[in-house]
């Protein structure tokens, strides 16, 4: 009797423990996001302390609480330069991490990521084409639409080329990524060759990835894509769980696999386009964040996706802050930083996948 009740107590403790971990992750990420946003918004040539950042925001929304920035150009700097940039970082980070989580779900492979498999560069080629040939068919949306189409085509390509018998082997996926990245860099090189000086500068910016010069109207475009994409991902999260069983078994428990995969590919392309359209190629966010989240709260997509979105936002805002402050008076390309950190992480993941799968399976 006592062993039974002790067992029940243990079970309850574990269940409560799991719940606490899950809630805890969201709370910690939420708090971190607020802190890092406040810090990042205040940091720069015109320094604004966090309390004044809060004050400025509250004043903007008609609540006259808190101190206004003391620096004469402080309020301007916040609203015209910093806030668009920080918001862009939040949105792009959330979009990239979510795209990674969804992609890993449909490929059944924890190494799938838009940057690694070439989807980001596919989107960047399309966006660069728009810049070089000075195309304009949808106003502010032109670049985003082009990036979306480029991302869609490359995602389909990766999917068609790397799947065999309902699964994607690690080695096939990585090799497909290499081939696609080679093709897209050739495309980018050609565009670079074709472009005039100003367009050339813009293309270099795609390749490096940067949040510098984000504008509110761009933020608006990215916000629509990111919010719709994350919402759609959350909506399909239950079925992504079932896809872990493999295509056939997922169908046996009632998933229309082809339909789901098509939807997921469109969503991945949309999320990648959201990030690439105005920030360029920022790789590895979609790899690192979902992986860390899985370590903490497990692989269930219903929590993994929102937690990844939140974590991606934190990571990218922090990375951007680092990019702006690491070297005085220099704005480092953020894509370079994420690759610098993400590359070794990717190495480690490959090694681990190789060990646990007993070879290159």
């Amino acid at each position, binding site marked *: 009797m006592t062993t039974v009740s002790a067992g029940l107590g243990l079970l309850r403790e574990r269940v409560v423990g799991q719940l606490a971990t899950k809630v805890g992750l969201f709370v910690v990420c939420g708090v971190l996001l607020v802190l890092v946003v406040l810090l990042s918004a205040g940091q720069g040539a015109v320094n604004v302390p966090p309390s004044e950042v809060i004050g400025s925001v509250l004043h903007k929304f008609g609540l006259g609480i808190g101190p206004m920035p003391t620096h004469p150009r402080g309020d301007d700097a916040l609203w015209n330069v910093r806030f668009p940039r920080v918001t862009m970082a939040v949105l792009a980070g959330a979009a990239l991490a979510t795209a990674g989580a969804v992609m890993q779900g449909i490929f059944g492979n924890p190494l799938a990521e838009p940057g690694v498999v070439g989807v980001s560069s596919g989107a960047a080629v399309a966006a660069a084409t728009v810049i070089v040939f000075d195309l304009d068919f949808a106003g502010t949306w032109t670049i985003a639409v082009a990036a979306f189409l480029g991302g869609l085509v490359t995602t389909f390509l990766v999917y068609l080329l790397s799947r065999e018998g309902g699964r994607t082997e690690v080695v096939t996926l990585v090799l497909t990524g290499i081939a696609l990245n080679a093709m897209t860099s050739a495309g980018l090189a050609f565009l670079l060759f074709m472009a005039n000086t100003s367009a050339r500068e813009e293309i270099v910016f795609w390749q490096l990835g940067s949040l510098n010069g984000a504008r509110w109207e761009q933020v608006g475009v990215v916000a629509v894509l990111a919010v719709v994409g994350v919402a759609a991902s959350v909506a399909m999260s239950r079925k992504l769980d079932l896809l872990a069983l493999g295509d056939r078994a997922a*169908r046996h428990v009632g998933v*229309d696999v082809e339909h789901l995969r098509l939807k997921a590919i469109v969503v991945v392309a949309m999320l990648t386009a959201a990030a690439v359209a105005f920030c360029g190629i920022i790789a590895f966010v979609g790899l690192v964040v979902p992986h860390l989240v899985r370590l903490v709260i497990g692989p269930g997509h219903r929590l993994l996706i929102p937690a990844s979105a939140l974590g991606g936002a934190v990571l990218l805002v922090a990375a951007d802050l680092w990019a702006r402050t690491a070297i005085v008076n220099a704005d480092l390309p953020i894509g370079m930083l994420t690759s610098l950190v993400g590359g070794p992480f990717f190495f480690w993941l490959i090694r681990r996948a190789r060990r646990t799968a007993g070879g290159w399976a």
Partner: protein
Amino acid sequence: MSADATKNATMGTRQESVPASGTGQVLLAGHSVSLAFGSAQILDGVDVEVRSGEILALVGPNGAGKSTLLGVLAGDHEPSSGEVTLRGKPLASCGAKEAARQRGVLMQKQALSFGFLVRDVVMMGRAPWHRSPEAEFDETIVDASIKRADVEHLGSRNFPTLSGGEQARTAFARLLAQDTPVLMLDEPTAALDIHHQEQVLSVVREAADAGAAAVVVLHDLSLAAAYADQICVLAHGEVRAQGRPADVLTAELLSEVYAHPVQVLHHEDQIVIVPVRRPGGSR
């Protein structure tokens, strides 16, 4: 009403009981099913019927087309000709979810891409019932299924860390949790020890006695003889014999089909099938 439903739910099947005597309703059927991959004819005009209250065992040598037939019946492969019906309705016209509420499939090999917990995996079997009145019993049914498949002690383990047999039993629990009138199992006993072989097939037997229709691919002929009501012997993609174990499992037929002398023994009311071995061992 709710109490009754809960009781049925814990039983695992929602059908009314029917006598297990070959008179049950046909729940799953293949009519002159043929399938060719390229020039290889895998199945050739196969007719099978799986009835409520019965276990149908598919037996035959390697490459006879047993797993492929099961795949066709499950809707994984489209037959080149012929038709599969699930509860009288063409399977091809059933949606994935509709089919999943009627039949559950246990595959030969288990795979899982991410480290889900055993209980989460079993809960995946409840997916077809999401947003239906049955979803109310998800927890009860999952608990009961975990118990019936004897994986209670693994509940909080990570699926990929389990042994092959433990994974197979977890997948079996998932199949039970799906709570369908038709159960399809592809070599459910292959990875299991003798205790769990008997245990898994007893649970299938119980489900059939409660009205389920089960089709099981088996290699062990003695197991098939002990648990199945009907046996279908396949060879080279064709049905060689079909009927009650005692009628079908003859030394003559089996020796021919398996291209190896086989003897059929009767021991304490059981049929035991053993290969003929040279005296003093097979060396």
